[in-house]
């Protein structure tokens, strides 16, 4: 056994307890609003709202935005997931503050540069953004919330996300291990 002298400031919660708490949060969301959790939906709201603000004429005649308004009533920013994601930022910050983890940094494997990490973060974000629209939700909105209500589409999306990442893990291993 190796022992390290590093002070242990980072102590994460037991993952199974974390999971039960996550499940209770998801249960509460369903009980209160009749829908699960989500993250990419809030981004979609901001994209719709910002496009309408900057180029209202374009948004009016473009199909994506028209369809959004057929499915959603009211202002895109007055949306359940927008409020929920604002909460996530507050909750994440509070947790980081309590655990002493607030720090500006680029987290990456010692084998790669910060620049490379940031480039891949950008590319990964772009792909995840596109994929979340096709999948009608991301890991939270489609996969996790889908399991809770036994949704076929949600579980298929989940298998796609994890399957896709495993299939490509070999090619990107230098970024992580």
């Amino acid at each position: 056994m190796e022992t390290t002298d590093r002070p242990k400031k980072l102590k994460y919660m037991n993952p199974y307890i974390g999971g039960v708490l996550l499940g209770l949060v998801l249960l509460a969301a369903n009980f209160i609003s009749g829908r699960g959790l989500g993250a990419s939906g809030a981004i979609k709201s901001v994209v719709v709202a910002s496009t309408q603000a900057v180029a209202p004429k374009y948004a009016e005649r473009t199909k994506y935005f028209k369809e959004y308004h057929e499915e959603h009533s009211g202002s895109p920013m007055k949306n359940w997931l927008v409020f929920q994601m604002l909460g996530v930022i507050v909750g994440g910050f509070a947790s980081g503050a309590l655990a002493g983890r607030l720090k500006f940094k680029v987290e990456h494997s010692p084998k790669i540069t910060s620049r490379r990490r940031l480039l891949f973060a950008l590319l990964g974000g772009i792909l995840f953004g596109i994929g979340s629209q096709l999948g009608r939700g991301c890991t939270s909105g489609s996969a996790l919330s889908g399991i809770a209500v036994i949704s076929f589409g949600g579980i298929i999306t989940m298998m796609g996300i994890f399957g896709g990442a495993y299939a490509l893990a070999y090619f990107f291993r230098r970024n992580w291990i």
Partner: protein
Amino acid sequence: MGPLAVNDIISPNTNFLLAFIIGIAFGLVLEQSGFSSSRKLAGLFYGYDMVVLKVFFTGGVTAMLGLLFFSLFGWVDLNLVYVNPTFLASAIVGGLIMGAGFIMGGFCPGTSFCGAAIGKLDAMIFIVGLFIGVYIFAFGYPMFETLYKATPMGAQKISTMLDISDGVFALILVVVALGMFYAAEWVEKRFPREEY
């Protein structure tokens, strides 16, 4: 009784306030579980840290069982709980693209906001990417539309498709989850790990 907002037991504005509070709890749990760290998340795909699998499936199973029991007790009408509709082709393709995004970017959307909240610059850049991706989809929608709307199957539940009750499916999923937890604990012992 539930869902409260659907049954007009709470007002739309109360519903938004509760969304914010639920979001705070969501963010706290994600961050406390270590989901603000991309290296911890990516551990799932290399076997050195299986926290994503453990938290994700414990969470999914807990919520699923909770909803089934709430329904049994008459606390929630499952017919009023939203089941995301299935569009098979776009669910598969979208999922795979998200998988590529996950292994390259190290986050998913929810976790990236958590990481950004504690100062992770890689998470902030990932969020910039997310916005670019959704803008690409919105502006290039005609290009994606055929795939997006292909093979609609409605609000399909797996239990209905397999012709078994929700309870039996839940039991199967619990057994599968326990098997995966056992495998995850075994895998973690075989790979060196450090806390980030």
